[in-house]
Structure formats: C-alpha cells, structure tokens
C-alpha cells in the first residue's frame, strides 16, 4: 500500500467515525444557514439568466403567437376600421353611384 492510499483510508475512516451519529444541533443549524446563504446567492446571480431562459421558452412564444392569431380574428370579426377598408368602402359606394343612372 502506498503512502497516498494510506492517507485516503485514514480520511475515510475519520469521516465514517465522525458521521456515525447525528450532528450536534448547533453544528447542523450553522450548516443549514450556510447552505441557505449559498442558495440565496446563487438565485440572485442567475436571475437575468433565468429571465432570458423564460423569454426564449418555446411555450411563451407559442402562447404569444396564438394570442396574436386570436386577436387578429377578433379584430377582423369586429370589422375594425382600417384605411384600406375605408377606401374600398368609398370605391364600392362609388360603384353603386356609377351604376345608379342606368336603373
């Protein structure tokens, strides 16, 4: 057995003995606090990344596209005014007047 392997066995043995029972309450509390602080830091750092990921999610775009589609149909169904439609109305009315003298 080499010196390096021997050191590894010693550390394993130490860990096994140290973790055989539950940790003392104050040590466990301290560890929990440190873990929470670490988690909070990690969340803070990745907030823009999370926002970016959310923005590029397929479902978001799909929902947006479906909303656009529905809005388009609703607007058309409600016969919302548009300059092109107004111009066509004028021409259509002119076509009626154009035809009138013959009848």
């Amino acid at each position, binding site marked *: 057995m080499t010196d390096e392997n021997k050191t590894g066995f010693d550390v394993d043995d130490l860990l096994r003995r140290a973790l055989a029972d539950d940790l003392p309450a104050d040590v466990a509390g301290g560890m929990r606090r440190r873990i929470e602080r670490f988690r909070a830091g990690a969340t803070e750092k990745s907030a823009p990344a999370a926002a970016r990921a959310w923005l590029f999610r*397929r479902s978001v*775009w*799909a929902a*947006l*596209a*479906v*909303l*656009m*589609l*529905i*809005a*388009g*149909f609703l*607007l*058309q169904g409600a*016969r*919302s005014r*548009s*300059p*092109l*439609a*107004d*111009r*066509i*109305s004028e*021409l*259509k*009315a*002119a*076509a*009626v007047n*154009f*035809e009138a003298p013959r*009848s």
Partner: protein
Amino acid sequence: MAETEKTSTRGRAAMRWLLAAILISAVAASGAFSGLMNKAGLLYLVLGSVAAALMGFRGPEIATAFRQAAGQAGSAESLGRSAHFWEAAARNAWILGALGSALNFTIALGTPSGGIADAGVRMIQSFLVTLYGLVLAVVCLVPAVKLSGKAEKMRLQGDARLAAETETGGPARASFRAVTPDRIAGYVLFAVVLVLTVFLLVAGLPQTGPVPIAKVLLHWPAILVVIGGAIALALFMGDGAGARAWTLGFAMTGFVGLLTGLIQALLGFAHRNIGEIASACAFIISASAFSLLGLVAAAAPLEDREVMDGLRDKPGALSRLFWVVFPLLTFIFLVLTFIMVVLPMTKPGG
C-alpha cells in the same frame, strides 16, 4: 479536344441567350404589347429576384449555377445544387409576381383616383406583375430542368466520382451559418426594392389622399393572423420539420386568411353591408401579401440553405406544392376581390 468541345458548348449557350434577349427586346420595342407594360412591376420583379437569390444562396453558389447553366461541367452533386438554385429562382419569381400584384392592388385601391373606372384599370394593371413572374419562372425553369436531367444521368451512369475529379469551380459545401454577408445584402436589397416599388407606384398618382400609403398597406388583423398563425404552426411542428415548418406555417395561415375573407365578403353581400365587404376584401389582400412575403423572405431562403448545406436532399414535397399553389390562389382571390369591389350592389327588390 475536350477544351474545344467545352468552348463550343458555352458558345452555343451564349448564342441562345443572346437570341432570346434580342427577341424580347424587339417585341418590347415594337410596342405591340404596350398595354402589357408595367415598368415599376418589371423593375420590382427583376431586382426582387436578385435579392431573393442572395437571401438563400451564397455568391459562389450563384456564380457556379450561372456557369453550369452556360454549359460548364460538374459533378452530379454540384449540378444538382445548381439545378436547385434555378428551381428556387423560378419559385421566387412566381411568388414575387403574386406578391407584386397584391402590393400593386393594395396601392391601386388605397390611393385616391379618378373614380371606380380609374381604380379598376389600375387594379387590372396590377395583375401584370403575376404575368411577369410567370414568364421569368418559366425562363428559370429551363436551366433547372436541364441541369437536374444532367445530374440524374450522371448518377445513373456512375460517373459522379470521375466528374468530381475534373470539376472546375464547384464550391464546396460550407458549414451552416445563419447570417452571412450575402444574406444581409439580400435582405437589405429586398427592403430597398419594396420601398422603391411602392415609391414608384405612388409617385405617379395625385397626393391629395386622406391617408399615407404605409397605413393603407398595414391591415393589422391580417398581419396578426398571418404572423401569429405562422409562428404557432412552426413551433407546434417542432425542430424536426426544420424550415419546412415555416413554409407550411405561412402558406396554411395565408390560405385560412383567404377563405375567412371570402366567407366574410359573401356574408357582407348577403347582409348588403358595404363595410363588411370592404373589411373582408382588405383582409384577403393583406393576408395574401403578408403570407407571400413570409414565404419568399423567411421560409424559402431557410429551405434553400438546408438543401445547399446538405441537411436535406431537396425541399419538402408539401413545400413545393404550396410554393406553386399559394401564389396561384392569391391571383384567383385578387381577381375575386376585384369583382367584389366593382360589382354594384342593388337595393332589395330593386
């Protein structure tokens, strides 16, 4: 010996193109078809086709396609890619023709005129752009058919390896890059061509109208339906469908828009409601224009790149079907719209 034969082939090809150009120039100069002249439409179609080619292909690929159409030899793979270029050019010309008609039609309807008779003449003239597109598509289909036939023959004879060794100038397939200088130039040129065409069409008309032309061209319900529907369909089809999803998305949404508009217009006739008919006509024109714009500027270039980069052998069968059928449907619906606009409505019992 082989060199002499190659030079002779190129000379014959050049002579054929020269004769065709002389014939077309002579017919144009004779004035026999002066009623069929729409200069702005012709300029739009030629420059728009150049821009559309740049949007989907790289410069060296275009140069090779021209050289091989003029008789240069190449491997079966290279000839196949050049054949695809010419087929795409034909497709672009056809789609651009229909799009030009839709834009021209919108401007004819949306700008002030000397009454229904004047607007009617301008609407009819807008159909000429589709005719130009069809003619240019036929011209581009000639080298496409010729080159694909050559490529097929070489594949059957198993000469592809030999030809690859003797090939001169066929570009190697490059790795897929979404943004290239060619594509940027193509999109910029396309935008310039669209603006220039609208400017040329509006320039000859009296500017006493109540609304700017940009407002006339943007009928928001149709834009929302086409863009929303195309994105939704493309996303639901998933990554596996590739660029085909965008072709199907734009074409299917456009088709839905055309039918919706037609049904609404017919209901307008039944209700004798001019406002309803006008809104439906505006929807038909705008939905067809924006669907064609999506097809030619977004979906088709993406499919072209997939083929040229070797991701697919050829465009999807459904895509090819839509590229042919949708512009034709647009033309038919524009004619129907023309009839609906000029058709006078009689009073009940009158």
